[in-house]
Structure formats: structure tokens, C-alpha cells
């Protein structure tokens, strides 16, 4: 016993050494997927060797005899399912069919969903009035037709069974009449005091209609006050522009014009309202570089891995305070500020020098970024640096803040908390914000809020804040309401409903009227009133055109700031202890998407965790604290502490840990309830993003985390490749090696896909788009932990180099649609077949679930329905499904089809018009969503098609070329333009 314990200890402590030895022994390039791979942990072996690592987990506890009996019975009854007469289901025609509606043909409407106050312009697809998919709005200059994962998943928010469906008083469901009466009474009271004690607290908002309504409200009740609470905000960035230019401005970087980007812990490609625009613009510059037009140098210094950092040519790991010092060093080097005596390590000095040279090489095409959570003075210094290198007006523009600014500016929420604590608040109306859950811990908001006499909450969910209020008013989802909001470029989107509200809910604008004691209200009329002078009335062609277009085509007027002045940056060298970085969760954000299964089961970047958040720790720190994945770690600072499961994260600074917001909810009966740990208690209003001097200790607890990283590990060589920039030019054709199997595909079209790993940032937009388009079922945490997630498209993360400072690679892996597909050779019932245009099809109605195809598949892209995952879906979730795609049942194998429903639709249209399918006419869901246009689909038999031209590049390669499956999905190698791989 004792011996074994000793032995185990020895294994753990030598894990690092083993990893080092594994890497040291290799002379060639070595890519790895997880630390377990380097240490050759049993879990990794199991994942690699077994097709279904936990095939029998949870299936049955029965003994051998019971299993045999059940098998006999299922064989005997197998044919009985066919013994029912073909049914005659009901058909309900319209009473009056809308004139422009064609049954079975989806209609599209330009509208927008709102994220963090910003409009995300979308094209909403409806099938017979039922919204089924959101696509980017191609005409919108900010997104250019792309979307991010949040926008894709917003559709499910509409159908969310956890949505609040009726108003509540003291937590009990009631009807609107009681609410209206209470509001009328309260309005009279406020009239008497001219609104004294009325406080309106909202989330971030950019809506011109809200601004108009607020102005009206303030006119009637001048003593009322409006406050904003947005947990993940840009306050420090506005503070920085105020420091530099004397007024708060919103930065508008123009990445498409950048040849050199130096980012100090700014994840401009990461999740957030700007992701789509930034990623699209950055990819345009990157593509110009691929085409030999200038550089696209990206240098990132950051403490924790980010999407931007993963794409950097030179990524430097530095703690948050070292990053701030390096901004000053660069400023000193470029003459933008005083050059104080800074102690930089040689590696840091070298990086700063390289950054300075990159910026000097590209005058007028460089950009320096500092993260939105960096100290405002440091950010201001970065702005000054931009002025110095001539970036302002070229690669960096400014506009007035797009989000409406509350009277107390960035201190708005603290002012409210103070007033509440002092008993100065009579009526507190909270609109689309959840301060009880997310308020900084030092303000003790839940207690302070109890002092308000009347508390009203309005939102989509009955959340923690709603439970602490007297009244709760359910609001309409953006896809069923009339509203407006401004996108990140300042263009105002008009939000029009795709469907009438399902429940007794009201629009936000109507709620604001009710608050003033006015009964009822038509959100359309309220919106029209805002735009009456600009777009005329309802019948005015300007209004109709704008509504059809989806947005008012006027970007935010650019502002030309004066000379940037930056205050002296106080150097803050970190003391002892650990730095805790507080970040929004990459898929759940600040908690608002907690009830969205598409986002809960979306594997988070790098660690591929689902359904949980974790405390990210560097492998070195984990060794020091004796932590393994899932071991609980307690983080304490300033008398506050949180506890969560650790996750070893390569590329994290060794004394930094990262915690993600958004989990640890207490929402009884809702999907988000009780998942993960709550990181908000560590957050204070003074230090919302970074806690210095924290202590970390192992507690002995353990949580099993569900990560998909290992279950799809491939066995073979060269999954990711890099190439010099010259390889982005067309090369000689590269014939496939000979095969015993006869060639069988000819004719046109022949479908294929090219995925550019040089521009794939791993943002997950494609994965969510695929879920939405193809009715991919969500399976839940325990099923994911058993390796049974159903995503048709996954993004594999690879690392290269030491676990302390690796290079990162993303590789989206859909079905390869092999020309010589092993799965087809394995299927005993011919359910896996090839079509003549090169698709590898899975015929669900033939499949009997032997899973042979999956064990034959070298790419692990096939997914088996172990259970009927959709059987118990509530009717509202069923309404979200795409009617063009079969909903799969239990015992069926499924996988990526290249969106065959879109191909068939285009083919039928082309056939009706008696012409060939045009290049670009078939766009797969993943391709359509991709912000960086990394995925291109088309006809590979046409040498002029976009996909053929990409495949002709020298850096084109296929996955596991050595097994000669001749995949139709191929990859373009990442272009190696940096010193990362030294």
C-alpha cells in the first residue's frame, strides 16, 4: 500500500521531467495536443487506442443474462416497427396565406441581435414564420456577413425553455394587470416627488430609442437618475482616452490596413462584440501578406493564452505588470515617452526591439494595442505610441462612445450602490442587468438593494436579481421585438421581429412606458416615433428601405483627437503571491449565456472544456502546488476566496492564474444552475480584472471536467504544418500516391473544401453555426465526459514546443469526405455511401448502428447517437430545428454532410434554371459564419473555382496523407513568419 502511494507520488513529480525528456529526444518538429500526451498518461492512451473510450459507461448495469435476453427480444421485435400502416398526418393550411410566402422556402429578414449593448447585424431565416437560423448580414460593413458563436447561438435564446414566460410578483407568477396597476400607482407617487428616488439600472445600451425614451422620462421626473451595470465593460478603455485626449472616445482600429500589430495583452481576435469585425479585417491584411503584398506581423505580449496570442508570429509570455512595463519600454524606444530605467529580461528586451523594428518598418501601417483591462495610464501611453508611429487616422480611428454613457460615467454603478446603501433610493428599476449575481464583491449590492422600497426587474430570465425584486417583468427576445441598437462601427441596426412573441412578454420600450404609468404600448410605434424625422413614417420608402436593409448606413462620425498626452505611468512591480486574472468566459461570457446549451457544450478555446469553468494554472505552478486537472484550488486575496477545479494550461505565465466569470449560478430548475464555480466574489470595483498578491492552495476536492481535447486525438503524423510565405503561391500539381482501389469519381461538380489554418483563429463560430444548421444534438456534461459529444465540426488545438511556452495551432476538422473512404468499406448495410459529386453520405434510414464506420474512420469525425438525445426536447426547442435536415434518432451514426441540404437546394435551383451551379452558390454553414473566411467550399473539378485555386497552393496538404484516403477537405499550412518555433 505504502509502496504504491510512494510510486504514485513519484510519477506525478516526474511528469514534468518526462515531458521534457520526450521533447528533448526529438530532433524534428513535434506537435502535441495535451499535456497528457507528453507525459503519456493512461487517459491519453485510452483515448487514442479505443474508438469509444467509455463505450459502456451508463449504458447498462445489467448482468450477462439480462443483456442476452434484451438482445434476443430486440432481434425478435426488430421487424415489428414496420407493421404500422402509413399514417395520414394532419396538414394545416393557412387561413390566408401571405402572398409572398412559398411553403418550404425560407424567408429572410434583416435584423439584429444585441450583445453587450452592441447590435450584431443578422439575416434571420424563417421557415413558415419560425426562425431557424441566423446568418451575418452580408451588406453590413462591420461584419460583412460573418458572425461569432454568440450571435449564432442567440437563436436558441429565443426558444430557451428557461425563459421567463409571465410577470411575477414576489416570485409568484401573476398577470400584467397587477403589474400595470402597481406601475400607475407608483408613477403618481413619483410625479409628486418629481422622480426623486427613482433609479433606473440597465445593462450597456446603445439604442437611440432608449435614449429618446430616457430623455422623456428625465423630463417628466428630473430628479430620477440612470445607471449602467455591465460586468464586462470597456470602462478602462474610455478612461484611457479621457486621460490621453481629455474626452472619452471609442477606438476604431482598422486592422485591414495594419502591416504590423503590437498587442500588449489585447485579445482583439477573442470573443466579444468586436470579434467579427476585427477578425474579418485582420484576415484581409493577412491574406494580402499571403499574396506577397507586405507584412502582417503580429506581436503579442500577454500573461495568458488568447486567440490573438495564438496567431502571433512572436508571442511573449509576461506577467500583467511586466506587460505594462514593456509598454513603457517600447514607448521609450520609439521616443514617445520618457525612457525610465526599466529592468527587462533579455527575452523581453529582444521582443521590444523586434516590435519597435516592425513598427518602424511599416510607417503608417503599424498599430499598438493595450488590453481593455490594462491600467488606463498604460493604455493612454499606448495611444501616445500610436500617435508617435503615425497610426492615428490611418490604422486607428476614434469615434464618440457608441454605447450611451450614464451621467456618472464609468463610476455609475458605484454611485448607485452608495445611494442604495445610504437609503436614497425609493424605486429601483433594473432592466436587463443582473447585479445580484455579478456586482463587484466589495459593494455588497444584494444587501444594499434591499433598502429600496420598490424593486422592479425586467429581463428575459427570472434570475438572481429578479428573485430579489418585488416585481419581475419578462421581456421580449431581440428576434421577437421592435427596437434599435448600434453596431460596433456605429451604424444603427433596426431590429424587427422574425416572429410574434410566444409568451406574455413585453418589449423593453413598452416596459419603459409602463414604468411611467402609461398602459400598453406598441413597440413598433415607439420605434417609428424615434425615426419619424429621419426616415419618415411607416409608408415612407426611406423607412421601408432601411428596414429591408436592416441598418441605417451611417457609421459613427470619426473624431480627430488632439495631441495625446499621457500621464506618468506608475510602475507597479508585483509583490509576492499569485496574480489572478478575471476574464469573461469564452462561451458563457459574464453568465448571460449560461442557459444556452449550444454555448455550454461548445468546447472552449485551447482546453476544450465544456459545461464548466476552471481555474487555469501553468504546468509549473501546478507542479509546485501538486495540482492535476480537476483538483480544487482555493484562491484567496483581500479576505475573499473562491474555489474551483484547476486546469493545467500550457503557455500561461507561471505565477498567473486565470478565472472565468459566468458560472456558479443559483437558478433553481434552470440549465445554468450549479455549474462550475463563481469567480465574481474575487472581483472588486477597484480591481475588476486583476487581483495581485493572491494565495493559491490545493483543497483536496476534485471535479471531473469534461474536455473534448483528448477524445478525438489522432494517431499519425503532420496534422498541422507550417510553410514559408512563398508556399502560398500555386505550385505544380501534386498527384496522390497510387491506390489499389479504382478511381470512381468523375464529372462536375465535385465538391471539396479548403481550410486555411493560417487565418483560422479558433473562434468557434463555425462549430455553433454547424450545430444550428444541422440540428446537432447537445448531450450534456456526463456524455461529453464519456467522449460522446456530437459536434460535426471540431477545432483541434495543437501545441508545439515546451509546455511552458508553446506555439498554438488551430485546426477545424469536419468530415474529410475521402474519395477512398474507409468508413464506406466498413459499413455492413451500405449506409455509408459515396455520391457521384464526391460526398460521403450517411444514410440514416439505412444505418443500424454497428459503429464499424467510426472505428474505420482515421479522422474520428463520426458521432454515434448513444441515446435519443432529442426525445425529451420541449416543443419550443423542436421549433428551433432546421426542417431541411433529419433529426437523428438513437442508434444512428452521423457526421458532417458538407451541408448537403444547401447543395441540394442550389442544385434544384440550377436545374430549374437549366444551368450549372455557380461558384460560390453553395456556401456551407461553417464557411458562411467564419469571420476570417478561412473555410472555402466549392467545386474542385473546376480549376477556376475559389477552392481549386486555394488547393493549388503549395502549402495545401491533406490530413493523414500517408493512409491515402484522398480527402476532399484539405488544409493550407500556417505561414511561418516568426521566431515562435525556435
Amino acid at each position, binding site marked *: 500500500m505504502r509502496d504504491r502511494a510512494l510510486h504514485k507520488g513519484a510519477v506525478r513529480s516526474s511528469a514534468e521531467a518526462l515531458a521534457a525528456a520526450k521533447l528533448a529526444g526529438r530532433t524534428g518538429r513535434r506537435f502535441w495536443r495535451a499535456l497528457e500526451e507528453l507525459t503519456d498518461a493512461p487517459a491519453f492512451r485510452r483515448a487514442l487506442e479505443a474508438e469509444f473510450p467509455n463505450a459502456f459507461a451508463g449504458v447498462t448495469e445489467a448482468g450477462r443474462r439480462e443483456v442476452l435476453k434484451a438482445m434476443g427480444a430486440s432481434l425478435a421485435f426488430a421487424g415489428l416497427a414496420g407493421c404500422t400502416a402509413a399514417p395520414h398526418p394532419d396538414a394545416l*393550411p393557412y387561413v390566408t396565406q401571405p402572398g409572398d410566402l412559398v411553403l418550404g422556402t425560407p424567408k429572410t429578414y434583416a435584423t439584429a441581435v444585441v450583445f453587450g449593448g452592441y447590435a450584431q447585424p443578422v439575416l434571420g431565416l424563417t421557415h413558415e414564420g419560425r426562425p431557424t437560423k441566423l446568418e451575418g448580414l452580408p451588406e453590413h460593413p462591420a461584419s460583412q456577413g460573418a458572425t461569432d458563436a454568440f450571435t449564432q447561438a442567440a437563436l436558441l435564446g429565443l426558444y430557451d425553455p428557461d425563459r421567463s414566460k409571465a410577470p411575477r410578483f414576489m416570485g409568484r407568477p401573476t398577470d400584467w394587470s397587477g403589474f400595470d396597476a402597481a406601475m400607475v400607482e407608483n408613477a403618481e407617487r413619483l410625479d409628486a416627488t418629481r422622480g426623486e428616488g427613482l433609479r433606473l439600472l440597465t445593462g450597456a445600451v446603445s439604442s437611440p430609442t432608449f435614449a429618446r425614451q430616457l430623455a422623456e422620462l428625465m423630463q417628466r421626473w428630473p430628479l430620477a437618475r440612470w445607471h449602467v451595470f455591465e460586468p464586462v465593460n470597456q470602462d478602462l478603455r474610455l478612461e484611457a482616452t479621457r486621460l490621453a485626449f481629455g474626452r472619452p472616445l471609442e477606438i476604431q482600429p482598422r486592422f485591414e490596413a495594419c502591416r504590423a500589430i503590437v498587442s500588449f495583452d489585447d485579445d482583439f481576435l477573442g470573443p466579444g462584440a468586436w470579434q467579427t469585425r476585427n477578425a474579418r479585417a485582420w484576415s484581409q491584411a493577412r491574406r494580402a501578406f499571403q499574396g506577397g503584398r507586405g507584412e502582417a506581423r503580429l506581436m503579442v505580449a500577454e500573461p495568458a493564452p488568447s486567440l490573438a496570442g495564438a496567431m502571433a508570429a512572436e508571442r511573449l509570455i509576461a506577467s500583467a505588470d511586466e506587460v505594462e512595463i514593456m509598454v513603457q519600454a517600447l514607448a521609450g524606444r520609439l521616443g514617445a515617452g520618457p525612457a525610465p530605467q526599466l529592468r527587462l529580461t533579455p527575452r523581453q528586451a529582444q521582443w521590444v526591439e523586434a516590435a519597435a523594428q516592425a513598427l518602424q518598418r511599416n510607417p503608417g501601417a503599424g498599430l499598438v494595442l493595450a488590453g481593455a483591462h490594462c491600467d488606463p495610464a498604460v493604455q493612454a501611453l499606448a495611444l501616445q505610441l500610436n500617435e508617435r508611429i503615425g497610426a492615428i487616422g490611418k490604422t486607428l480611428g476614434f469615434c464618440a462612445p457608441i454605447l450611451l454613457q450614464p451621467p456618472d460615467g464609468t463610476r455609475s454603478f458605484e454611485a448607485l450602490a452608495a445611494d442604495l446603501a445610504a437609503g436614497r433610493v425609493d424605486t429601483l428599476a433594473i432592466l436587463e442587468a443582473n447585479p445580484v449575481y455579478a456586482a463587484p464583491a466589495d459593494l455588497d449590492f444584494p444587501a444594499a438593494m434591499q433598502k429600496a422600497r420598490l424593486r422592479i426587474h425586467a429581463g428575459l430570465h427570472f434570475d438572481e436579481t429578479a428573485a430579489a425584486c418585488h416585481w419581475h417583468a419578462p421581456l421580449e427576445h431581440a428576434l421577437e421585438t421592435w427596437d434599435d441598437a448600434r453596431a460596433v462601427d456605429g451604424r444603427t441596426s433596426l431590429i424587427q421581429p422574425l416572429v410574434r412573441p410566444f409568451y406574455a412578454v413585453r418589449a423593453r420600450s413598452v416596459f419603459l412606458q409602463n414604468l411611467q404609468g402609461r398602459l400598453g404600448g406598441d413597440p413598433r410605434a415607439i420605434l417609428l416615433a424615434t425615426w419619424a424625422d429621419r426616415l419618415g413614417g411607416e409608408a415612407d420608402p426611406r423607412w421601408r428601405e432601411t428596414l429591408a436593409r436592416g441598418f441605417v448606413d451611417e457609421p459613427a462620425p470619426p473624431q480627430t483627437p488632439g495631441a495625446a498626452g499621457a500621464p506618468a505611468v506608475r510602475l507597479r512591480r508585483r509583490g509576492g503571491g499569485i496574480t489572478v486574472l478575471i476574464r469573461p468566459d469564452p462561451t458563457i461570457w459574464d453568465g448571460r449565456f449560461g442557459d444556452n446549451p449550444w454555448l455550454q457544450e461548445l468546447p472552449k478555446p485551447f482546453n476544450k472544456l465544456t459545461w464548466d469553468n476552471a481555474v487555469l494554472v501553468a504546468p509549473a505552478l501546478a507542479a509546485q502546488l501538486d495540482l492535476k486537472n480537476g483538483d480544487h484550488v482555493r484562491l484567496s486575496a483581500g479576505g475573499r476566496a473562491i474555489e474551483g477545479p484547476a486546469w493545467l494550461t500550457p503557455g500561461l505565465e507561471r505565477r498567473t492564474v486565470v478565472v472565468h466569470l459566468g458560472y456558479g449560478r443559483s437558478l433553481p430548475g434552470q440549465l445554468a444552475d450549479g455549474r462550475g464555480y463563481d469567480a465574481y466574489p474575487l472581483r472588486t470595483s477597484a480591481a475588476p480584472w486583476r487581483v495581485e498578491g493572491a494565495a493559491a492552495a490545493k483543497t483536496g476536492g476534485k471535479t471531473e471536467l469534461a474536455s473534448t481535447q483528448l477524445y478525438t486525438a489522432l494517431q499519425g503524423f503532420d496534422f498541422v504544418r507550417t510553410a514559408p510565405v512563398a508556399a502560398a503561391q500555386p505550385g505544380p500539381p501534386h498527384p496522390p500516391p497510387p491506390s489499389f482501389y479504382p478511381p470512381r469519381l468523375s464529372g462536375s461538380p465535385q465538391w471539396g473544401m479548403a481550410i486555411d489554418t493560417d487565418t483560422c483563429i479558433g473562434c468557434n463560430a463555425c462549430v455553433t453555426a454547424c450545430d444550428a444548421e444541422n440540428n446537432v444534438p447537445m448531450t450534456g456534461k456526463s456524455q461529453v465526459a464519456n467522449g460522446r459529444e456530437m459536434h460535426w465540426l471540431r477545432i483541434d488545438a495543437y501545441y508545439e514546443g515546451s509546455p511552458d511556452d508553446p506555439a498554438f495551432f488551430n485546426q477545424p476538422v469536419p468530415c474529410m469526405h475521402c474519395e477512398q473512404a474507409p468508413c464506406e468499406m466498413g459499413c455492413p448495410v451500405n449506409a455509408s455511401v459515396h455520391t*457521384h459529386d464526391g460526398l460521403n453520405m450517411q444514410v440514416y434510414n439505412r444505418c443500424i448502428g454497428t459503429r464499424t464506420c467510426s472505428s474505420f474512420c482515421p479522422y474520428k469525425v463520426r458521432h454515434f447517437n448513444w441515446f435519443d438525445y432529442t426525445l425529451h426536447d420541449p416543443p419550443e426547442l423542436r421549433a428551433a430545428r432546421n426542417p431541411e435536415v433529419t433529426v437523428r434518432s438513437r442508434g444512428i451514426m452521423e457526421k458532417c454532410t458538407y451541408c448537403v*441540404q444547401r447543395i441540394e437546394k442550389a442544385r434544384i435551383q440550377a436545374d430549374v434554371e437549366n444551368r450549372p451551379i455557380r461558384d460560390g452558390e453553395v456556401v456551407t454553414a461553417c464557411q458562411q459564419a467564419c469571420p476570417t473566411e478561412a473555410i472555402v467550399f466549392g467545386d474542385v473539378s473546376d480549376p477556376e473555382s475559389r477552392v481549386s485555386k486555394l488547393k493549388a497552393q503549395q502549402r495545401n496538404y491533406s490530413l493523414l496523407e500517408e493512409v491515402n484516403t484522398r480527402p476532399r477537405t484539405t488544409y493550407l499550412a500556417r505561414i511561418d513568419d516568426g521566431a515562435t518555433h525556435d
Partner: protein
Amino acid sequence: MAQIFKPSADTWLRLTVLAVFVAVLGGGLLGSGFARSAYLTRVGWPVEQPVPFSHAHHAGELGIDCRYCHADVERGRYAGLPASHVCMTCHSQLWTGAPMLAPERASFAEDKPLAWKRVSALPGYVYFDHHIHIARGIACVECHGRIDTMPLTWRAHPFQMRFCIDCHRNPAPHLRPPDQVTRMDWSGWDKVPAHRTYGQQAMKRFHIDPVRLTDCDVCHR
């Protein structure tokens, strides 16, 4: 040691083997016969509807074009059933008091759809598109039979995969001029020599490739 088996055991064994063979063969034949039976495929069984609508009267005697009621057939996947509004275009003037039409009038008055029974429903994993079949000249009668003679509507053909695939394998004999798809009586068509090659010519003109037409993804996805 006494004998374990009696002399008749051999006979019993043979009889048992034979019985099993007959049972399996008979069961198989019976099963496949049942699967093709009108009971299962519902061919020729009138379906009870909320309103006893007669195609024989409307399409046959009155000669109303199919597309007057099934208006989406040339534009989309579904032919569509007539909206209550369409019925009322005539029946607000004709037979306004007929008790037979009461559900129809109620539907229109109360703005509630009428729940018809689908006669020609396909399984959920079959994606059939009317639009392309009409454009290529597959006449209504090919699948729906002589609807103009049906007082109540029934299924004319078993909508099983064999029915679809027979045509997809060999479309030529089923192709007709697209502008005449609603014509019901084609009995004289083959008598005209020029018509005999129509199918082959249409296949060439429309680039119809039966090999491609039998790919699984044409109907299943």
C-alpha cells in the same frame, strides 16, 4: 444402455426442420406481402376529411386547374393545400349554406386552420421537391393518379422507396412536356410516334443523369 431416441425421432427431426423452413419462408412471404398490401401502403383507401372534398367534381367536372389550389407547386418544395381563403373565393358565393361546408366557413370566420389529413405524406427523412419535378415535366398523374376521378381522395400509388427509385432509374417514359403537367389523361400520348422519343430528348435537353438521380443524397439528408 437403452436407446435414447426412438426410431421415429428421425422423422420428427425431419418434420421439424421442414416446419421451420416452411415457417421462415412462409413468414417471409407473408411479411413481404403484407408490406406491399394496400392495408399498409393505403393505396386506394379513401381518407376521411373534415370536409368531404371531391376532386372528381372540382378538377374533373368543373375543370379547375390543380394550381388554383396547390399554388406553390411550381415554386417550392410543397404543393401546399389551399388556404381557407382560397376555398372561400368561390364558396362565399356558391353553396353558402351547405352544411357540408360548415367547418370551412368556421375556419375562415374564426381564423383557425382546417385540419386536413395528408393523403400523400412521405416519411420525415425523405425530402421531396415538387418544384423540380414540375419543371422537368413529371405530370401530377404520375404520382397522384387520376385524381380527377376520385370523389374522395385516396393514395394512388404506394409511396415506398421502390416507387420513387423506379422512376429515378429510368425517368424517360415518365417525362412529359412541362407545360402540360396538370393534364390527367395521357392515354393517347404514346400513339403519336414523335412522342415516343420525347423522354430521351428531354433527358438530353435537361441533362438528366439517372446515375446522379439515384445518389442517396438526392432524397435523404
